[in-house]
């Protein structure tokens, strides 16, 4: 019991940092995916090419490689010192935005052309059409893959421990090292499980909300 009290505050601090990392990444990468999705679909070829290259690079290389790249890139190439935490958030946001962009793009492309035509016939601008007609109808379709990515992100946060970031994973391994006791592993597993469980709960609520209409065009 004493032992637990010894490592508990330390690990809770790590948990808070993991949650911060997770929330910050999600809050920034979810919206950032949208311009890349719209850009990939653009008829302006150079823009769509750039967006596709971006997605290709970030989805096609290991997250760990990206993590180290940005961690060293700023001090070595730009002469700017950034904290390990900043480097991690930056990398995760850029990486996850690429995944979300592909999910959004798939959702947008699944919408029937008739929706655009009806909007055009009613005089809606392109912005109104995207914002009020197309994107809301993609929600139902993009929700499950987005939640999957978010769950992956919970687990990917543990990679931050490879840099000088004392997240839940790092706190756990150092607690185990110091105390030569396995209990912290179980404690960490429970924290990660609680996080993914909360995510699943939220996803279920959202799914119910979006199923009040059937997003499929039918005739």
């Amino acid at each position, binding site marked *: 019991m004493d032992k637990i009290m010894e490592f508990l505050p330390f690990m809770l601090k790590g948990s808070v940092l993991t949650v911060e990392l997770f929330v910050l990444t999600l809050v920034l990468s979810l919206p950032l995916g949208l311009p890349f999705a719209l850009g990939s679909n653009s008829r302006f070829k150079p823009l769509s090419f750039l967006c596709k290259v971006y997605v290709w690079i970030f989805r096609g290389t290991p997250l760990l490689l990206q993590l180290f790249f940005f961690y060293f890139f700023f001090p070595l190439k730009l002469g700017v010192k950034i904290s390990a935490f900043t480097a991690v958030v930056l990398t995760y946001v850029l990486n996850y935005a690429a995944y979300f962009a592909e999910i959004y793009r798939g959702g947008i492309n699944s919408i029937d052309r008739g929706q655009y*035509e009806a909007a055009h*016939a009613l*005089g809606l601008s392109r912005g*109104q059409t995207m914002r009020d007609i197309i994107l809301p109808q993609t929600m139902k379709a993009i929700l499950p893959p987005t939640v999957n990515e978010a769950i992956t992100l919970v687990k990917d946060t543990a990679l931050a421990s490879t840099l000088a970031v004392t997240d839940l994973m790092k706190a756990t391994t150092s607690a185990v090292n110091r105390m030569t006791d396995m209990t912290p592993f179980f404690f960490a597993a429970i924290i990660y499980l609680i996080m993914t469980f909360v995510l699943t709960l939220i996803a279920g609520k959202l799914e119910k909300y979006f199923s009040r*209409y059937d997003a499929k*065009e039918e*005739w």
Partner: protein
Amino acid sequence: MERETVLEMKNIIKDYGSFRAVNNVNFSIKKGEIVAIIGPSGSGKSTLLRCINGLNSITSGEMNLKGTTGMVFQHFHLFNHMTCRENITYAPIKVKNENKADVNKRADELLKMVGLENKGDVYPAKLSGGQKQRIAIARALAMRPDLMLFDEPTSALDPEITGEVLNVMKKLAEKHTTMIVVTHEMGFAKEVADRVLFMDHGVIVEEGTPEEIFENPKSERLRSFLSSMLRA
């Protein structure tokens, strides 16, 4: 008194790549007039309508449209994430910046006119095809267009429910709504249209009153089209 011309098209050509879908069409419609367009599949009827409302650009020719158009599609294309009322009110509020209360009142009237006054808060997924099409008509009318375009509004419906949509269109005809209706419903064209156009291979082959078109077809192409419609 001569009625005002709403739309005038001169030598309209529409090419898809090297394929000529609409070939040198001359056409005009006056306020309050009801024109039916008939013709075999692929003759360019939809393309012509889509040139009128800008869904297709025209390759060459001159078009003079006074006012705005409303469009009713074969497959409805209702906004699935909006209730029927929202479908009707969205464009007047967001595109024309009209007063919300006015638009809602108009939506009530339109819902009543199409016989769906109790469906305002329902999502389109809960409606039958005929009901969806009636909401789609109400949605287009809510913008108070000067010219209504119908592209085979009953072709996607089961035969037994085409009547409910055609009845709404007849009501509009009685109110002298200016409209162009592409249709395979020869009975409707005969009864409601002031003028009928027969298109084939992108060309207006014949044009006349319903009697002229249906009782005295001049061209062989129209005669064979009409007899194929009778057989169907």
